[in-house]
């Protein structure tokens, strides 16, 4: 897993992805942004999860998410990193 992105890289990618999906200007989503306040609807939220699946190879829909997981970019990035860590040993095995 030498090429696995670190937490900061995941956060950067997430900010960029959310900006694209919500048609927001670059730099408008940061690690401080309260994600529910962006008003992301169900269609866009699922689109974000599909983008995460494509980019990081983790299916967040299968394991489910707690309300806290989707409150901020760092929280969501931490879940992605944790799920990647779970998936990686299985792949290696």
């Amino acid at each position, binding site marked *: 897993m030498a090429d696995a992105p670190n937490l900061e890289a995941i956060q950067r990618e997430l900010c960029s992805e959310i900006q694209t999906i919500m048609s927001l200007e670059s730099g408008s989503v940061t690690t401080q942004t309260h994600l529910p306040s962006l008003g992301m*609807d*169900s*269609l866009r939220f*699922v689109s974000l999860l599909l983008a995460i699946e494509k980019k990081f190879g983790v299916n967040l*829909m299968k394991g*489910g998410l707690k309300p806290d997981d989707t409150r901020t970019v760092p929280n969501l990035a931490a879940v992605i990193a944790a799920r990647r860590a779970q998936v990686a040993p299985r792949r290696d095995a």
Partner: protein
Amino acid sequence: MSFSLPYSRHRRYLTGIDWIMGAIDYGARGANGFGCHSQAILDLEGMVDEGPLRAALDQIARQFPLLRGRVARDWLNLAPYWTTPPADSLPPLPLNVVQVSSDDQAERLLDEHANARFGSESDHLRFLLVQIGQAASRLGMVFDHRLLDAFGAESLLRLIDQTARGHLDEIAPRVRQTEPAHLDHWQRRFLSGRTLNRYLIGLGKQSICALDKPRSQPRPSVRFLHDGLTAEQTADFNRRATEEIGLPIILPSAAARAIIALKQTIPIMPLAGEQLTLFTTVNTRLPGQEWEKLLFNQLSLMTFSAGASGSSSAAQIATGLRDQFVDQTRLQIPFVMEDAAALGRICPHWIGSRLMRLVNDGRLCTFYFVCLRENGYAGDCFLGQPVTNLRHKPLTFFPPGLNICMTSFAGRFNLVVSYLEGSLPDSVAGRLLKEFKAALLE
């Protein structure tokens, strides 16, 4: 290579979902004599004065002449478009004011108002102000779905209030009235058409449960039953829905409860078929676009299915619907529909309506389902009077003849079952609403 029809201030080409809504409206008129329209109702404390309301409506009608527009077609390629008439030739928006002494009388009048047909091709809005003594008022607004979707209708009610407060001049420039035709990206549109075609063929292979069209009345009216959840019950449902499917979206859980309610009612309902299929719309506006995208339809369409038999729990059905939601999003169905319809719009609405009827003999779904978690009103007063509720009476037409609707106001869900008179007994519709509410609270 791309080619665009000329941009005009006086015409708006009906592309994408607007074209689909036009075809549905055409089919609805053929089936029942009325088009695709709904009523939004503001429940208010105190008496709303007629004068300021009429003045605000007149200002809005002058500012947006396209509210009195009509659908026409290019003589060359038949592309349907919305015409905008000259502002100085327009009559005022119709407003009737009546006084009654009880809530029941008010509700009866609103039902009649919702069921009345529009008088001409240029009528798309009409208002009824019911004053219940000095204590309360109801304002009903019937709107043509070709011009406004449910969220847009709520925003228009907000615009009336903002106009009365003198804010029309600052809001009006933000409202987008016309758009270029976008006859470009042909390859992408053809691929979208192919994807949508395959999806519809798949849908057509299912044996979809559907009500029979009432035969006794050639022009049946629509009946409405209304109930609601408290703010605590709504918050509790939202929390449970999120936990149930592991995602912060409520549509699958809400739709699962509607399916459970229908299953409970099936033994006493004239439904035949193997699949309960619901057809739903998803609001595609981004936050802050309520004025820019006030007019026309800003929606995506989706369908969901569950077996009519079997004893799956609400959680199991919700999980299945969540997976269907994800699969349709993965296949880009909500987005390809927009693209593909833009391609098909060069054919007249009657051809579009015929094509839709080819799918499973016109039975696209068992029932329409509406789930609006957000509302477009975003205010607690209307013309100085406190708003106690904002609800909808969606008309439904055959097929499917049945609509289960939940909209939100002030953190509370309104629940409505609307059905074509004669398509099912009133007692069964009442039971359906009761079961739906019970399932949401379980």
